[in-house]
């Protein structure tokens, strides 16, 4: 294995992955961003302001919660979750957004644009824009604006402008395309606030750093509470930002295994999935070289997942590198497995996770059960990133479990 901590190189490469496959028109902005990001992170005033917002605004540090009743279903494992769902706006997305929005201000850019799938990152971006007085425009696939009208309205209530994208498959990847198009034309006064560890360099590196706080906190919390490092850390992987945040401070702990759980949708054999690492191949998409769901010709193939936030046909390049190098283990989790885990953690622990996060929980349960067979003497501590809360997913869960909000019984009717 190479020295992980020296990655990426200054061109943004993680081995063969990453880089900057973008129109020249964006080069200046990306170069500026790369430079300003480093300057900002070296500037105590910036770091202090970011930290102040994390603590006073977003509610960090988030706790870790041990889940005894859920763990009882997972072999000998002790499952602990890192509670990113308790962040302001309900997921880890705010960590990144606060960082980039502050950076936009620092760069003198008064406008931010963002892509969004179900709307989580869009809401988080609109939130940070409202907080810092930035103009905000969010691109969202038409298919998604139709099925997530509430989130459209939420962004509008926050003062953002929401643009429906009808091109391509009219979903997340197309909203990224459209945001790129906007950025090419507006780069002077606009920052493109990418929502995950994907896209052209320096986004994967920068977003990782903004999400690193997850593992920095979790590592200290685990050591304090348990006096040991965990057997493994785990997370769901869409673009990969919550997973990268969860992995970051553990990458250099070789004894801690890194597990990423991708969305397998209906199952890899069906072709209807979003598991880019497990079921994709190496290619170039959205400015980076990584694992991509693509056809024979290199045309991007639509991804499928019950979870909007994982429904993306690529993955952050550092994950591609971690997978290829063997440092990380990536496994797919089907819709059905994720929803079963969604129900289990909800009913045993009173924590309704985002369906994204339920993939991580499902993976951890499976891992726990597998380890109980393979290494029955082990009682492994597994820390899963609970990347977000499930409020946004109640309607999907309803549909999945065939509920319709009808009460169990009626009394007092005459």
């Amino acid at each position, binding site marked *: 294995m190479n020295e992980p901590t020296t990655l990426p190189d200054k061109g943004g490469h993680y081995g063969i992955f990453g*880089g900057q496959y*973008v129109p*020249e028109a964006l080069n200046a902005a990306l*170069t500026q961003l790369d430079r300003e990001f480093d300057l900002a992170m070296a500037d105590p005033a910036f770091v202090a302001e970011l930290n102040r917002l994390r603590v006073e605004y977003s509610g960090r540090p988030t706790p870790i919660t041990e889940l005894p009743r859920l763990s009882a279903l997972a072999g000998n494992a002790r499952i602990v979750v890192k509670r990113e769902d308790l962040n302001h706006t309900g997921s880890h997305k705010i960590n990144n957004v606060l960082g980039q929005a502050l950076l936009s201000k620092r760069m003198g850019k008064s406008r931010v644009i963002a892509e969004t799938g179900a709307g989580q990152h869009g809401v988080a971006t609109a939130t940070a824009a409202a907080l810092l007085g930035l103009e905000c425009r969010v691109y969202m696939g038409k298919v998604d604006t139709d099925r997530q009208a509430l989130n459209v309205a939420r962004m509008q209530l926050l003062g953002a402008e929401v643009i429906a994208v009808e091109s391509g498959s009219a979903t997340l990847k197309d909203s990224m395309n459209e945001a790129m*198009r906007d950025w090419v*034309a507006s780069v002077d006064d606009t920052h493109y606030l990418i929502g995950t560890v994907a896209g052209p360099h320096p986004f994967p590196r920068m977003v990782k750093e903004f999400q690193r706080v997850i593992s920095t906190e979790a590592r200290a919390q685990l050591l304090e509470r348990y006096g040991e490092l965990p057997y493994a850390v785990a997370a769901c992987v869409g673009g990969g930002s919550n997973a990268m945040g969860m992995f970051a401070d553990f990458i250099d702990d070789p004894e801690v295994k890194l597990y990423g759980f991708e969305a397998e949708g209906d199952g890899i054999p069906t072709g209807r999935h979003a598991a880019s690492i497990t079921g994709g191949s190496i290619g170039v998409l959205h*400015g980076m070289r990584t694992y991509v769901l693509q056809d024979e010709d290199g045309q*991007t193939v639509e991804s499928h997942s019950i979870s909007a936030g994982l429904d993306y046909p690529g993955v952050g390049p550092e994950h591609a590198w971690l997978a290829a190098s063997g440092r990380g283990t990536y496994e797919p989790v089907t819709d059905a497995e994720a929803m079963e885990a969604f129900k289990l953690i909800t009913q045993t622990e009173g924590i309704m996770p985002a369906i994204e996060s339920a993939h991580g929980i499902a993976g951890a349960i499976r891992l726990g059960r597998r380890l109980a067979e393979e290494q029955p003497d082990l009682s492994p501590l597994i820390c899963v990133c609970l990347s977000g809360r499930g409020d946004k997913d109640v309607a999907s869960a309803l549909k999945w479990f065939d509920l319709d909000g009808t009460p169990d019984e009626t009394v007092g009717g005459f």
Partner: protein
Amino acid sequence: MTDMRAAEPVKAPGAQLAGAGISGRRILAAKAEGRAALVGYLPVGYPDVDTSLDAMRALCRPGDGPGVDMVEIGLPYSDPILDGPVIQRAGTTALKRGVRTRDVLRAVEAVAEAGATPLCMTYWNLVDRYGVDAFARDFAQAGGAGLITPDLTPDEAEEWMVASEEHGLDRIFLVSPSSTEERIIATARACRGWVYATAVMGVTGARQRTSSQAPQLVARLRELAPDTLVGVGLGVSNGAQAAEVGSFADAVIVGSALIKPMLAAEDAGTPADLSGLRAVVADLAAGVRSA
């Protein structure tokens, strides 16, 4: 990968980087006529593969008069981040109708037969997926002159530098108004054929007026890389604009303005009707000759 941060571009193995190449010579020929070269973009596969080849032939010979000097054969791609709505629509439709990467080879042959210089404009993943060397080999074999790569800058072009040298293909990289001096110099050196100057900050699409940034960008290029041929694209929509651009650029690149009449023909239920296209080409060809 090539390091673009240094003002001095790294030399690709055994390459004469600033060469005019096939497409550059075509531009020089136009220059010899006292005019800018005309480059027309059309996607292969729209409205279907056969008709798109017809359209490219029409581009080369719109009628009695002259057509384009070069055809920029667009390879439709699922995620065309530099394309405006017109090209997106044509490309998406072509993909829906089954166009394949290999169809570009037929287009190259058609264009070459029609007497223009065939270039291909493609997002990088399609080439990457085909295999960079394999693509270069097949493309060259079909008679193609080179590639225009909207999302590949010299920074990531190591493999392409090698393959293009190997197969004698031109490399047309883009520069933009926001490019630094260092990058303009380095990009110009990495190019073979000519340099594609994106005249506005923005995606493709015919515009009412051409950009005021274009002359400046070309001037910067001429100053920083004196011997480089420059094509200007993004936004040219008629003969008058072509004349204007042709007055300061070595090649005038037109895309959306050519596709619009084809979309109109499809909307009118006569997708094979290329008369609108021919009229635009004739206007543009006259334009570059009117200065």
